């Protein structure tokens, strides 16, 4: 009996397979590999506009005789719709290939779209099985699509998406921007009290002189500063020093340069360059008279790099005073950032609320409701311990008298 059942079952299965072929198999040359995406909000119609970079594998093929190198490595397409999905679906009508999100590395949001709220885009990216949550989120002050249409070929990497990704991922080398991917954003949404930030991307004119002496200008992409969200809406921007202020607090500063006015005379206008070696930041919550107080402890170590004339490190106190000045610079950056976030944007991007809840769960329940009002006036104490650990291979500078 069971033999017959088995036989029937397996023959049906076999027939199904043979007749319908492979349901889900899509060859690689039938897929449009997206390498970068931009989302804008159209002013007049209020529609969502998507701009995509689609990789042309042929143009990237190595060692073929076809001379594919002449082709641009990506194809820029854009389309608009009443929602992100709508726009994407109408895109497929002129790509002829299935959109493949898995290799997409960056998502650039235009200012308008970000101000209206990024939640629907994030929701799509997390819900759909294609896109990855490791995709980087960038916000631009102008139109996001314009960045992708202006730049279709990278300078060092041929694909712009890869170049931009490396650019952002290397943020710690200067600590002037932040690294935020979709997972950071959605996990902050999930944790509730904390608001996300994102890297800021912009197009800048860079003038250069050609061979013939004629002057030309070229648009360059720059990732500098950060965008601040309140909830899922864009609230404002942080410039580079303020962004470093943010990074000091979260403890994400990697390397970077701190410029300090020399504490001795005769140095001219040359500042002392301090190269950041190591930094960490801790947020602590305290209770003072039933009110939460935040203490930020930042400790930093750096190395002297450029010393102006007249430096004499052997003199007692010189290094100490450099350290003090360094601490002041850091403190100022933190304060500038705090001022913007607390007073101007009223957005808890640091997770102060979370820290209070973590350490004082009972008190937190009382103030949870009015955290929005408490936060802008929250007392924040900043303690910086800045150290100079090394001077490179030289102690004092050697210069002609």
């Amino acid at each position, binding site marked *: 009996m069971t*033999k017959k059942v*088995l*036989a029937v079952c*397996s023959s049906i299965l076999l027939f199904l*397979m043979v007749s319908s*072929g*492979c349901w*889900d*198999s*899509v*060859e*690689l*040359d039938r*897929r449009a*590999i997206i390498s970068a995406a931009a989302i804008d909000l159209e002013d007049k119609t209020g529609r969502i506009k998507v701009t995509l970079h689609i*990789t042309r*594998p*042929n143009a*990237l*093929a*190595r060692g073929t005789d076809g001379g594919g190198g002449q082709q641009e490595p990506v194809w820029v397409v854009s389309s608009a719709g009443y929602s992100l999905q709508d726009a994407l679906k109408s895109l497929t009508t002129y790509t002829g290939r299935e959109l*493949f999100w*898995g*290799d997409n*590395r960056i998502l650039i949001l235009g200012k308008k779209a970000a101000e209206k709220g990024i939640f629907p885009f994030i929701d799509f990216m997390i819900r759909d099985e*294609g896109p*990855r949550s490791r995709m980087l989120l960038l916000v631009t002050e102008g139109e996001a699509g314009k960045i992708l249409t202006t730049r279709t070929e990278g300078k060092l990497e041929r*694909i712009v998406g*890869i170049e931009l990704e490396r650019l952002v991922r290397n943020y710690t080398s200067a600590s002037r921007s932040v690294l935020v991917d979709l997972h950071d954003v959605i996990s902050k949404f999930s944790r509730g009290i904390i608001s996300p930030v994102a890297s800021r991307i912009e197009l800048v004119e860079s003038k250069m002189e050609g061979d013939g002496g004629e002057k030309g200008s070229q648009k360059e992409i720059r990732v500098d500063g950060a965008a601040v969200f309140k909830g899922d809406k864009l609230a404002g921007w942080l410039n580079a020093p303020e962004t470093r202020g943010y990074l000091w607090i979260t403890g994400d500063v990697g390397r970077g340069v701190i410029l300090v006015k020399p504490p001795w005379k005769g140095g001219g206008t040359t500042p002392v360059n301090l190269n950041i070696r190591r930094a960490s930041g801790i947020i602590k919550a305290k209770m003072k008279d039933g009110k939460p107080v935040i203490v930020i402890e930042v400790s930093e170590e750096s190395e002297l790099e450029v010393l102006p004339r007249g430096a004499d490190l052997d003199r007692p106190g010189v290094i100490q005073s450099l350290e003090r000045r360094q601490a002041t610079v850091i403190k100022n950056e933190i304060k500038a950032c705090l001022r913007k976030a607390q007073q101007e944007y009223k957005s808890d991007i640091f997770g102060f609320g979370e820290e209070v809840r973590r350490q004082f769960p009972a008190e937190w329940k009382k103030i949870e409701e009015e955290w929005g009002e408490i936060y802008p006036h929250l007392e924040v104490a900043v303690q910086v311990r800045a150290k100079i650990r090394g001077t490179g291979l030289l102690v004092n500078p050697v210069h002609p008298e």
Partner: protein
Amino acid sequence: MLKLLLRKLRFLNISRKKSSRERKSQPSMNLKPQYRRLSENVESNERKIREIFGKSPDVTIRKFSIGNSGINALLVHLDGMSDLEIINDNILRPLMQEDRKILPDRKNTLECVIRKSVNIDEVVKVDDMEEVIDGILMGDSALFIDGSSEALILNTKSWEHRQVEVPQTEISVRGPREGFTEVLRVNTVLLRRKIKSPDLRMETMKLGRRTRTNIVIAYIKELADEEIVEEVRRRLKSVDMDAVLDSGYLEEFIEDNPLSPFPTVGNTEAPDKLAAKLLEGRVGIFVEGTPFVLVVPYLFVENLQVREDYYSRPYFASLIRAIRFLALHLTILSPALYVAMSTFHPAIIPPGLLVTMAAAHEEIPFPSYMEALIMGVVFEILREAGVRLPRPVGQAVSIVGALILGEAATRAGIISDTMVLVVTLTAITSFVIPSLTDVSVILRLTALIIGSILGIFGIVWYYIFILIHLASLRSFGVPYMYPLMPFELQGIKDVFIRAPWWNMSYRPETSGLKGGRRMLPGLRPSPAKNK
């Protein structure tokens, strides 16, 4: 599904099975009864022999009289299978020059001849023509003497054969070089020289109605499980066919699960390997006329073990073990994984690689599973061509195949570069484990088909399916996947790694393998202590 197939085939086999049940324990030549009885008359015996052998030119029949007694005698042997020198010097000369009065009593002629005349080490008295013929066919000489209804079988075996050479299939850099030959006796000697113990038992039997092939079952009495030995005897006895030309014939008859693609009977050409197996409680089956000795029970992990592992130092041996394990997976799964990943789950492919793969596949006319199938089949053709042709030509074939075909196919845009890479990888890795080459071809193709229909899901499904199948296999009652399934710690020391010898102090132990200590405990060497 496999089981279903199995049943279908079994059904076809029923008629054959029934008839095989009513057979005798030992196959015989089925001589007619009137031939079987020996006569006292030499002439009549000669006539019978001539009738049995027909006009075969190699049958030499020599009639002579013993000494001056006038008793007629008859010596029969096969030309080329017997040593003529021995026949002339040790049989004919003493008998013909016999001048003593040794034959007073005709009834005792044979006894006297055995005792005093023939200088041959092994003499057997037989009274059945069947045994006589058997002896002649083995290269012995048969001596008939008038007045006696018995014949003497004299050991004069000697024939041309290959010398002991380096085994072709199991080449190793370090370790004994000698390999088995086609001669049964030489083979058993090679084994006996490795294990000088009376516990090494050998039992003979004859299989094949026409070939009358000698079979020797070898085992070590204390170490082999008696039930397994009995099972081997039982299964071998039940093989009743007309010819056994190679141990491969027997292999298919004594397997536990004959429809499984996996081999559950091992074979070896190297006496040292056979000795090592016997010392772990296994049973060897020598078959006359082939250098390949069967070893049962055979476990899956033995495919991954090479005799040299045990002769070289453990670190490198362990590394190579791991690589063999990896190679086994690569050769089976890589085309399937490539197709599944590129057509179903490109998200799994690392980002940089994806674009390269996509670029390689642009403008290729075939879907990738077709590419893989074509290349897979082409590779098998090339391999077969390379193996069968004489060696110098074979190399030319592989050069043409590998270089020109691969290069031309990618240049013409028929096959993508990456696919050629994958197939090449498959090919190279398939040579790493020779004993599983045939299995891996089958598994590779089926995995490819299922992977191109159901993607990674299909491949993992298939993998688990194969695992269940492997778990259900037994070789002479021993679980095939031992010591992985069922798990055994002592055994695992010789699977993915090869533990140092002093650490493997126990033999493998499971149902069917007796286990036990093979060395004293605490043999790990340490520097001499300073006083």
